[in-house]
């Protein structure tokens, strides 16, 4: 059974990437633009660019910062989101403040953060967490607001204690939305990782991509982008596993046979 499914799985997952790659190669060969190097050229520089030392010196530290920043954002976003989502007036008061901060472009914001958090890893993690927190926060708030009234009534009528209500009703009920936010933030985290390394950095994946771009090493830059994409796909795969575990009830409920 599994053996039979493998070719189908391969077909389904690989067709689109293959078509895109083919088109890209074609386009690159036709235009011969330095800015659009062909995937073959990128593939050629990839090992020398990333596998000789940069993996340990640049990619791993970046990923560690990413992971820490993302987890911070997760904790902060969910915690604040639960509170803000439950208290209407608080939400009305702080939402514009959130929007205020959200609308500030990182190139302006990062320097302010440097004043507060310094220029080391702390700053970079802060930048990543800052970028990641919003989708989680917003989705958590909406998740909490959108809980079915009957579910709340049930919790109230059985006099569940606040912590029990939080753990057994509010969080599970909001969790599908929280997961949407977390998924959104995954990609944003990668982007913020790059942005954070544009400032006061001397290593990192994003730092290298920016340097390659600045030095017009475009093939190398593209190889970095491809690496980012690969990390994105991998992170998503892990995310899906976690989601499958935590939202088993929800996925089961939504994917019931129709």
């Amino acid at each position, binding site marked *: 059974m599994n053996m039979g499914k493998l070719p189908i799985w391969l077909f389904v997952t690989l067709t689109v990437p293959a078509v895109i790659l083919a088109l890209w190669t074609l386009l690159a060969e036709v235009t011969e633009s330095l800015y659009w190097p062909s995937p073959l050229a990128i593939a050629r520089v990839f090992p020398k660019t990333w596998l000789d030392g940069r993996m340990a010196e640049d990619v791993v530290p970046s990923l560690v910062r990413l992971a820490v920043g993302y987890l911070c954002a997760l904790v902060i976003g969910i915690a604040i989101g639960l509170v803000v989502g439950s208290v209407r007036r608080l939400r009305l008061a702080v939402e514009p403040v959130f929007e205020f901060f959200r609308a500030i472009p990182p190139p302006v914001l990062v320097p302010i953060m440097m004043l507060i958090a310094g220029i080391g890893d702390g700053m970079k993690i802060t930048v990543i967490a800052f970028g990641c927190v919003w989708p989680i926060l917003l989705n958590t708030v909406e998740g909490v607001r959108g809980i*079915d009234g*009957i*579910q709340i*009534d*049930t919790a*109230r*009528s*059985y*006099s*569940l*204690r606040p912590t*029990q209500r939080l753990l*057994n*009703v509010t969080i*599970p*009920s909001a*969790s599908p939305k929280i997961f949407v936010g977390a998924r959104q933030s995954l990609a944003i985290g990668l982007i913020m990782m790059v942005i954070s390394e544009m400032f006061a950095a001397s290593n990192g994946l994003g730092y290298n991509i920016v340097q390659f771009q600045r030095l017009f090493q475009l093939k190398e830059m593209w190889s970095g982008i491809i690496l980012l994409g690969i990390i994105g796909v991998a992170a998503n795969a892990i995310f899906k596993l976690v989601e499958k575990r935590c939202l088993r*009830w*929800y996925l*089961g*409920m939504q994917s*019931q046979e129709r």
Partner: protein
Amino acid sequence: MQHVEKPPILSVESLRKVYGSGAGAVEAIGNLDFTIGHNELICIVGPSGAGKTTFLRCLSGLLAPTSGQVVLEGKKVEGPPEGMAVVLQEYSRSLYPWMTVYDNIELPLKAKGLSAGERKAAVTEALAAVGLSSSRKSYPWQLSGGMQQRVAIARAIAYKPKILVMDEPFAAVDAQTRADLEDLVRDIWQRLGVTVLFVTHDIDESVYLGQRVLVLSSAPTFIMEEVRINLPDERDQLSTRALPEFARLRTQVYELIQQAKHVTYRTQPAVAGEAVSHGA
């Protein structure tokens, strides 16, 4: 109104509920005024849309009345009171889809602070009582409508409340199961001394179960009539339902409901004479 023998546990005092305000306002409860004694079993019947659910929500502190109040054991109800279990009409939405049947029933017991052993015993017993022992590990959305409803009932029973409030709790189960559950409710009521408020659309059921049947008018509702059920305390599905008194009572209630559809409470002394005199 009528005399209540047992000391009142609950009194409803000129309760009124209007949904919304302005032009779109809907007056659901016109005026409700009555008391319920300790360990009474009251059935409430009334036309669809009368205001029964609204009343139960006010009573259980889930909804703030527009005016009037509900007093439970001497205290005004302002939030869900302790020791009360409610089976909501929207049973399927009241079960948490992220918990198994077992966990759903257990959750309120945790809140009550029961030990693990006690909880296990209570849940198992309740599940057996509603005939769902084999579904304890299922999720609510894997169950049929009637099974979900029975889970909601099991949750209320396992809670061992002082007051049990049920809103059309047997609407989705078959006749045989319904009869079993009716006997279960009466059994719990007699054995544990629970006070029960029971909304139903089944007239036979209301007569079979209750000590009193309150017949509500259509919205804005008031108590059109209160029917005492003078049947023996020991009831059983075959013999009790065969009693001539049973037949008389069910006819009486049936006729009242037919009337109820056309009578509503008016705050202004407008048309319906009986309604006004009743409200005044």
